């Protein structure tokens, strides 16, 4: 069955929250509230997490990996280069001196952490992304958008809920 997209715009968060709550509590055939709903907003609202429920963020695992790999890479790169001097006399000084190597290891730790965090952000946030099937520039200004994907049989019910909560505009487009 073909999927259809609907985008409803609201002027404030209170209305959007009520819509989400109703979508959660109402049983609608052909619509899965957990997988088929996206809330769009102009700012980061902590309330969104409250009414959508907590969803996991995995960026920090990328950070851990990047920082660890950066630090290790830094240390072994420097130590490997210094080990080239193995055959030379060092006058009793260590071939791989740890205290000064710590500085560059630290810098590489941070460099790896930052680079891979940004990479993780792009992957986890799904960026770069193509435009959604429905988009309104008003979302980046001051309105709240609720984008839903459903089977054709569910669209009338969804529209009814949006209208009940004073949606400013409802956009509709056939999905693929």
């Amino acid at each position, binding site marked *: 069955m073909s999927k259809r997209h609907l985008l409803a715009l609201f002027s404030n968060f209170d209305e959007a929250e009520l819509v989400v709550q109703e979508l959660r509590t109402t049983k609608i055939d052909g619509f899965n509230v957990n997988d088929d709903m*996206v*809330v*769009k*907003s*102009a*700012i*980061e*609202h902590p309330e*969104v*997490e409250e009414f*959508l429920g907590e*969803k996991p*963020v995995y*960026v*920090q695992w990328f*950070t851990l990996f990047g920082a660890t790999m950066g630090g290790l890479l830094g240390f072994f790169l*420097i130590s490997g*280069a*210094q080990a*080239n001097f193995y055959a030379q006399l060092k006058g009793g000084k260590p071939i791989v*001196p740890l205290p*000064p*190597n710590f*500085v*560059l290891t*630290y*810098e*590489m730790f*941070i*460099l790896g*952490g*930052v*680079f891979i*965090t*940004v990479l*993780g*952000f*792009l992957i*986890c*946030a*799904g*960026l*770069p*992304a*193509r*435009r*959604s099937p429905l*988009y309104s*520039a008003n*979302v*980046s*200004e*001051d309105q709240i*958008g609720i*984008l839903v994907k459903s089977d054709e049989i569910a669209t009338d019910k969804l529209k009814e809920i949006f209208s009940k909560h004073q949606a400013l505009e409802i956009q509709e487009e056939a999905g693929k």
Partner: protein
Amino acid sequence: MKDIREDIAWAKINQDVLKSLENPRKLYWWILFGAIAMLGIAVGCEVYQYNVGMGVANMDNPHMWGLYIATFIFWIGMSHSGTLLSAILHLMHADWRKPIYRFAEAMTTFSLLTAGLFVAVHIGRVWQIYYALPYPNDRGLWPNFQSPLLWDAMAIFTYLSSSILFLYVGMIPDLAICRDRIHAGWRKKLYTLLALGWEGTDRQWRNFRVTYLTIACFLIPLAVSVHSIVASDFGMSQAPGWHVTSFPPYFVAGALYSGCAAIITLFIILRYVFRFEEYMTLPILKKIVRLTFAIAMVWTYLNAVEFASVWYSHDEASKDVLIQKASGTYAPFWWAMIFCGSVVPLVLAFKRFQTNIPVLFAVSLLLNLGMWLERWMIVAPTFSHGIYPWAWDHDQWPSFVQWGMVFGSFGWFTLLFMVFCKVFPSVSMYEVKEMVYHRSLHLKKGKADEQGAH
């Protein structure tokens, strides 16, 4: 007094900031023209030095760093303001930073780019800058990884690339606004490309928040390490006047100080040029002024610690350098540094001057003059009066080529900064909206509590 009005419409915030990208006051073009002229002088000096050699810079032995490295430290220091406003104040939930942190972050990036130029310029043979890269030469020898100079190169590269990423990531939601609101043309194409398809979905915001916080957490120790390592360039040598334990915190405090002073200068300029009076408000300026005053006092204290530890030590060579600074050829500049860095900021303690724009503009320029003199007074007197007698009384007055390069570096920085502010939003629209939103929620809650009490 409110930091910002809570009844500003969100659409107006977009409109005002986007207007700054198209329609600044005339002064903008004068500043841009001035910056290009200043840069032209520096380019002329560099071309002359490139063709004739380092002699025209009046460099000699022992004065092989001169104004170039002094100015390099100055620009590195300037970069710390962005980290302070974006990262430290972000972690402390200081909401007032929101309208001003974007330009401070841009300052960080462009200061580092300016500082990097001086490294290239001071080696004279600029075409051999690649020697600074850590790779083995044809005899299999690697650079000395135990040298603070190499640490410095690595630290600055890390700081620059992390700062650019931090600036860019924080700007993505605003780039999406620009993409949605700007008419077709090269700008729209640029914003569409850079916005990466951002739509403000809950998934994007969730990951954005964690990413921004994580990079902020990385940037704070990084910023401290960068200036500590610059301090190690001096502190780890045995040269008198440099071998001081308190140098790293002294450098970090100096960096924050000059950065804050520069923020005041640019705050005043941007507020007027881009008509940001509603966002860069006087209460916010007052907070920066107070912060600057506090850091000025920390810097003054660390100066006193440095003088006392040299004076009461048994290191006669270091003591001689200190006496030379206060009474020798460089004395007028050294005393000017003390005056500008420790006496002038006392003006900021007076309430009536904390929002007086002409006074603050003049004071911020004097503070930065003091901080630039500080860097020169770290570099030059030690070269003039080193440990070995042959180096004594080698006072050096920089040639016009050196002065031209220093002058031009301000033009280069201003040019980059002003072009950035014209192409990208220098006030964070989404964060100002957040600020307005939270303020209005807070007021609503206050009113509701009041009604409940009655």
